[in-house]
């Protein structure tokens, strides 16, 4: 699973460098997210702008990634493409995560 990470100030940005997050990679995604977030920022933005498709297993892996962060740390999502946004909306997970149209908006919202 291709994840890359950088930290700016108090915010860690994790970018998914893959077009799909599906059942075949869900477990690896969760484990890689655990590694990436092992120590660090209280606020994590997952940049999904490269992701064209997600299935319910991929969605579950993102939920699991937030749960494993523990108390007081936030996982926010940026750049959801239409099909990805639809899966979040139908499952009502759009009410669970803070969603940003893109990474720039996500970073700007920190300053509010």
């Amino acid at each position, binding site marked *: 699973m291709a994840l890359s990470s950088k930290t700016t100030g108090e915010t860690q940005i994790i970018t998914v460098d893959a077009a799909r997050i599906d059942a075949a990679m869900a477990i690896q995604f969760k484990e890689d997210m655990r590694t990436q977030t092992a120590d660090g920022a209280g606020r994590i933005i997952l940049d999904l702008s490269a992701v064209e*498709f997600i*299935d319910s297993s991929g969605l579950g892996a993102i939920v699991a990634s937030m749960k494993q962060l523990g108390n007081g740390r936030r996982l926010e999502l940026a750049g959801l493409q239409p099909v990805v946004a639809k899966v979040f909306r139908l499952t009502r997970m759009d009410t669970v995560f803070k969603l940003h149209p893109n990474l720039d908006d996500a970073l700007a919202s920190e300053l509010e």
Partner: protein
Amino acid sequence: MKRQGANGVTVNCEDGRLEVAFPAVEAEASRAIASLHAGLSNLGLPGQKTADIKIVLAEAINNVVEHAYAERAPGMVRVSVLDSKDYLEVQITDTGHPLPGLKMPDGIPASVETDTSNLPEGGFGWFLIRTLADEVRYDRRNGQNLLFLRFERTKKADRPQ
């Protein structure tokens, strides 16, 4: 056009028809779903409808891989998509376990109005299938599971009365 992919996924695309056959393991299913999604994008459907069909196909195929061949050697999964003027019909067949009670689950999703630690990480598959497909039927015949999915090409409300 028919080609045997190097990955074991057979894709057959003729006029208005897509077919794939693959062994029921996650990696093969992932490639097959990606092939079907690419084919769907070429059928000239409205974007929202294409999105719905992509989501349902992935969930229905993942269900087969996850449940039908649980604790037995993975058999083949065959998927055909037939596009006609008014609707698109999908048939998925496998030779795995029948659905429990020979019926499709209701697909009522777990609530997300709960503490973070209790959020559901799964159980959305049948909910998505039932929500997005215009018709879903299941049948068990001669040791095979058959799932029929039907999508209207245009929403009923959009049609002239």
